[in-house]
């Protein structure tokens, strides 16, 4: 079971309170996690990745295991701790403004 932490605004949009948990078949990659997330919560389509290109939106980043994975390949396997559910995959808004 994969654990995902979303920014507050996206949790509200998806009507979820805390962490989201999903079954994601191996290999567990950012693309596979986000595909599964959008399949379960279609209202999130376009909010994390662009509708057309599926590129990560510019002001969002992906963290896991205290690493910034934003610029890793979307098809690179996520750390074992994420795949096993020990650590969450975190989608976080970039800091901007004051």
């Amino acid at each position: 079971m994969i654990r995902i932490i979303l920014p507050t605004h996206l949790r509200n949009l998806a009507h979820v309170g805390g962490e989201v948990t999903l079954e994601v078949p191996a290999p567990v990659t950012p693309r596979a996690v986000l595909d599964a997330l959008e399949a379960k919560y279609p209202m999130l389509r376009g909010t994390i990745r662009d509708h057309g290109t599926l590129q990560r939106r510019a002001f969002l980043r992906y963290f896991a295991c205290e690493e910034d994975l934003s610029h890793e390949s979307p098809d690179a396997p996520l750390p074992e701790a994420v795949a096993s559910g020990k650590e969450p995959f975190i989608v976080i808004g970039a800091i901007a403004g004051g």
Partner: protein
Amino acid sequence: MSGVRVLAGTRKGAFILSSDGKREKWDVSGPHFSGWEIYHLKGSPVDPNRIYASQTSGWFGQIIQRSDDGGKTWHQPGTPPGEQTAPGGAPKGESNKFVYDAAAAPLTTHQWYDGTQHPWEFKRVWHLEPSLTDPNTVYAGIEDAAIFKSIDGGQNWKELPGLRGHGTGPKWQPGAGGMCLHTIVLDPSNPQRMWIAISAAGAFRTDDGGKTWKPINRGLKSQYIPDPDAEVGHCVHHIAMNPKRPGVLFMQKHWDVMRSDDAGDNWKEVSGNLPTDFGFAIDVHAHEPETIYVVPITSDGLHYVMDGKLRVYRSRTGGNEWEPLTKGLPQKDCYVNVLRDAMAVDTLDKCGIYFGTSGGQVYASADAGDSWNPIVRDLPAVLSVEVQTLS
């Protein structure tokens, strides 16, 4: 019993302000979609319970929201209220999908601030204009500039590519707010005709339901483009029309207040005795088509009202002769702005006038501008104001 419902979009959510026909006591509902920029909300003229809203974020992109009960509850079109998923239903999240029709009109570049060419990229929906006859049909004005249409209540959107494909796109450029299509005016006497305006390209008109468009900027003069009389490149801020007199248009340009008596084919300046003719908002009295309203703003470098005084200016002569309306508005130490979509009129007798400010106030006049009262004083910065007259 008549009433009004004022729809205010702000930097941090939407608010709905309701009153009876006296327009003295107000109920305030909101924030809806708290934390998101609500560029625009507008109700259907044929079904006042149907309201569309543009919810947007630089972080999370574009969301379209819809209410079918006058703003009490909201959902993304295609996602029934209260449900996350609808088994066997239409794909959800589609209502947020705005993809340029590059097959019909290849994506070109447009002019960037420094004069170089820049890719065309979708950013957000600035304006939603529901059809005059069908609550499920609605138009969307887009940044980077394009017009989209939905005929299924906002669930699926298709571009009307003839506008972006007009051929002058590489000469269009962004204003301070971006390269946005911010104004859509529908002609109640001719369903094939509509007007749109783009900052900074100018005004365009279609006479065939959106298939083809022509620039209608003759008479506009803009010193910030190499040829002040160019066919396109003008920073039109807003266009207003009294629906009872289609074809007579009033425009607040970047500088200059303009008027056209021939559906936009020709424009003449009617700034007259305004203290400054820079501004964003403009609107027309619901029952007196020669009575128009603007809120002069100091300049393009100083986006606040002049001399610390918030003054609406009214012309009862279709322009040129203007009077300041100040009763109930702050006349010292006021430095707010009023944006292009942040003024609206109701159709009650007497006509009500409404506007919102960058300081978070929404002001209402129940006597056509003679006097004003704040409905609310401390909202987030107001981006848009629309009003529904309810019977």
